[in-house]
């Protein structure tokens, strides 16, 4: 599983961080992906973050 973020689209709303703080970290300078290839146990949360992102900035590839 690979996580990619479009930083131009990201608004820093922090929904992804609220759902999965192990992978997504919103800071003053924008979103940081802490782990681009997260472990499989986090799949549900990461998929949740992907679809819940209000600006559709997150892409998850299997």
């Amino acid at each position, binding site marked *: 599983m690979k996580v990619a973020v479009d930083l131009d689209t990201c*608004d*820093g*709303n*922090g*929904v992804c*961080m*609220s*759902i999965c*703080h192990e992978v997504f*970290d*919103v*800071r*003053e300078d*924008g979103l940081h992906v802490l782990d681009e290839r997260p472990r499989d146990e986090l799949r*549900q949360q990461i*998929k*949740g973050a*992907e*679809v*819940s992102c*209000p600006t*559709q900035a997150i892409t998850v590839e299997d």
Partner: protein
Amino acid sequence: MRDDLHDIVVVGAGIAGMRAAETFRQEGYDGALTVVGDEWHAPYHRPPLSKKLLSGQIQRAGIDLAPQFDVDARVLRGASAHRLDPSSHTLDLDDDGTPLSLHYDGLVIATGATPRSWPGGAVPEGVMLLRTVDDCLAIREQLADDPRVVVVGGGFIGAEVAATCRMLGLEVALIERSDGLLLSALGAEMATCWAQLHKSHGVDLRVGASVEEFVGDGRVKGVRLNDGSQLAADLVIVGLGVSPATEWLDGSGLRIDDGLVCDATGAVEGGSDVVAAGDIARWWHPRYERHLRIEHWDHAGRQGETAARTLLAGADRADAYDELPYFWSDQYDVKLQMLGVPTDYDSFAVVDGRPEDWNFTAAYGRDGATIAVLSTTPGRVQAYRDAIKGGDEFPPTLSA
């Protein structure tokens, strides 16, 4: 997983219902799955309706939930539920004019909430509500005519709409009945702060004021306030909050009290094989030790997931959901983020920065414990997650 579920129905095709549907499949449920939605549109993101879609910064296609939502389910659009009989596990629908009864082994109720309409009854043309994408696009069309806007209701929808309209250069008045803007959500200290934000951007903010009547026959020309004054308006946007959409459940035996009352796993009290999620649901929250009905975007999705897992596991083997509610709001160039629930707070402190600089963090406490944190610094509230969850001493400090 229970092996007696072969027919699952999800009523409501917003984020809560769709996340529930998706979760059933992700968890390996391979029986029949039906999603019933009363809108004709495919599921979409609601937060932009009062912000970037309204302002025109993004277009309609930019708010679709697709393509991620490719759930293997029968989806009925334009269909509304109007009766539930839990004893026979039957759901009666109006499927675009045709009556339809569905049997279920397991049911997810996620019919959301409906905006409170104007209590005075009929309104002139140009008085509009904002809840759906159609509402948003209809309002947006009117904004193009450079109207004088009056926003009635100083909750988040009203405050965001007012900010969006001001950013478009429109003349805006914002009317709030209570003594503060965003008062019930943020408390008095921050209500004052956000009121100042709107005033400094040129909004004619009237708190402690209410609309007595709309002026104008046919098309609205203004509003008359309770102090007798009159404000001119070409467009009035009413944001009086929402009510959980439970009318259709009257007589079902499910416990309704400002929403469907659920335990901490999402199981609805008074029913079996029925779970609820999203704006309609009032779940028991273990951290706050009370039932909470949360109208937040990410909460609705996560409740949908949890409710689906509860249904699959069976009520006695389900996990409680104890995540902290989170929301954000964009007004002008300020992004407010809140983690936790500040309801009934008895102490408040700015813990970082200065409100006048619009780069600050503040905490809410009750009985000596930290219950919620608000910040305008992106992501900062999450640093206080453990402090809020653990009920750390107020005011909270950040561990390095």
